[in-house]
């Protein structure tokens, strides 16, 4: 990788080595990821882009060890996570947290927001004054202190996403995985949440894995990017380099397809777009 020089001496936090993941049945397998190798290094702001069915969300689940690869391995701080027990995974659970697209489905509607935010502290057995920790976290994501007593439905979409971010930060993770975390938000609210994410990443020295279909947002917030197409990494590199000079035809099609203000719609070359499985 071209970036190696810039971040010398920083060992990857997370690594995927020739990972393959299949779903479906033995006789009719669907390959979600195929021979994917990538790494997440400290302080990375890594974008993972691809369209539906490219394997983005599968990649997220494997990085969080919510499921195991069929081939290859996922390493956390240099150690293979294959076949680890629940207690052996505890450190990873604290260190790697995720924010999903829809805060409505990731927050329990019957729990007060303060309890939702404190939930990872309890389940991960983290000691300390949970109540004051919740207040700290609410403050960090720009929500008023009184929010802890309220329920998710009393918040707007953007505020709920702030709650989800506060919850993800509760265990003081090193890595924050954002899976389409701003995709469901209105344009006028999206910028606020993106700014918040960027500031939190800086303030807490977080490593960010930003999974998105939105090329413009990835370009804005990330420093490095991995492009997935049908379960394979077709290109990876520094964001600006990939955007200015994409090498793979798919990356080229992806970038030229992004509509711009007052631009012209350019239909990309027929890049397998006839295929029903795409």
């Amino acid at each position: 990788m071209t970036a190696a020089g810039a971040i010398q001496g920083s060992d990857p936090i997370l690594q995927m080595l020739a990972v393959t993941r299949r779903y479906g049945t033995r006789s009719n397998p669907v390959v979600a990821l195929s021979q994917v190798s990538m790494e997440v290094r400290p302080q990375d702001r890594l974008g993972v882009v691809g369209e539906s069915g490219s394997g983005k969300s599968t990649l997220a689940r494997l990085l969080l060890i919510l499921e195991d690869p069929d081939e290859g391995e996922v390493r956390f701080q240099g150690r293979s996570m294959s076949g680890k027990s629940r207690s052996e995974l505890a450190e990873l659970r604290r260190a790697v947290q995720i924010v999903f697209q829809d805060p409505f489905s990731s927050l329990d509607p019957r729990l007060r927001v303060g309890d939702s935010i404190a939930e990872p502290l309890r389940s991960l057995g983290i000691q300390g004054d949970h109540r004051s920790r919740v207040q700290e976290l609410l403050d960090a994501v720009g929500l008023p202190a009184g929010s802890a007593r309220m329920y998710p439905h009393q918040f707007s979409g953007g505020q709920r996403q702030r709650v989800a971010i506060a919850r993800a930060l509760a265990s003081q993770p090193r890595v924050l995985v954002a899976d389409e975390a701003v995709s469901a938000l209105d344009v006028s609210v999206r910028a606020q949440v993106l700014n918040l994410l960027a500031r939190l990443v800086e303030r807490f020295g977080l490593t960010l894995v930003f999974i998105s279909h939105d090329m413009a947002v990835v370009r804005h917030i990330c420093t490095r990017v991995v492009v997935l197409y049908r379960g394979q990494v077709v290109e990876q590199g520094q964001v600006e380099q990939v955007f200015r000079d994409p090498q793979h035809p798919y990356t080229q099609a992806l970038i030229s397809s992004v509509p711009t203000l007052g631009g012209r719609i350019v239909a990309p070359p027929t890049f397998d777009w006839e295929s029903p499985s795409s």
Partner: protein
Amino acid sequence: MSLLEVSQLTVDVQGIPVVSDVRFAISAGERLGLIGESGSGKTITALAIMGLLPEGLRARGSVVLDGTELLSLSERRLSAVRGSRIAMVFQEPMTALDPLMRVGTQITDAIRIHERVGRRAARDRMLQLMPRVGFSNPREQSRRFPHQLSGGQRQRIVIAIAIACGPALILADEPTTALDVTVQAQVLALLQDLVQDQGSALLLISHDLAVVSSVCQRIVVMYGGRVVESASTPELLTRPRHPYTQALLHTSRGIGGNGDTPAGHLPTIPGSVPELGRFPSGCVFRGRCDREQDRCLEAPPTTGSDHLVACWFPLTSPSDPTAAVTTGGVGA
């Protein structure tokens, strides 16, 4: 004369106005964009034009197509207009298509509902239509069922149905929002070419300013159920007059720029879009606007002729610093 003229269009839900006094016109062959966030009333406006409002909602005001008032038309007469004079394309093609019917048959049926043609003639037209929406092998592909097609292919079938009878107006509500970005570009390019070829007008409804400004010649901006601004696309992009439009442009440019806005420093609009019925009285953008004054407690009148704006304190061009923002180089 306008092809479609919408005036004083108002729709209430249980006494709460979700669309208030909306007015705009589309000329024959024109591509008009209607932009708005959630709660802006853009979809209700579209449904009101088509006479497809959900049960219990009634539209007041006027929607005139080619001299015919649509709001007072009987359902029977309106059905004849829908599909033949106005056609629509919605966000989710799966809900527009019958899952149990071959896609070719659905196109053929659409033709036969509106025109007196025989089955064979309709089928011939279908086979000519399919290549126009990008199916290179219509005999084989027309026999597929919707689930055997990709999302983009399904939307192209819906577009084939929409253009089948050569409508004067195609109304497309978020037609590409559910699609991947490369497929979105294909479908938008197709839609644009087709309306140009057959001289149809297009009303493109979207939350995506980049999409609308790439396809349409003129843009209507809605917020809180009202039209806050409308102008030609180049004018709106370079000289926005409503603070909301300007804020949207700043945000979009920040995100869609050449990576030159540092992460964490995007221009933002304070607050969030209020829930339905919670928009403030007076100016709907009150509470989120940096130009707000006491006068904004009262609803602003719409002023201007070609470039309309509903604001007591609109931005003035070109001495305004905001006008210095150019359209060049965005995301290129």
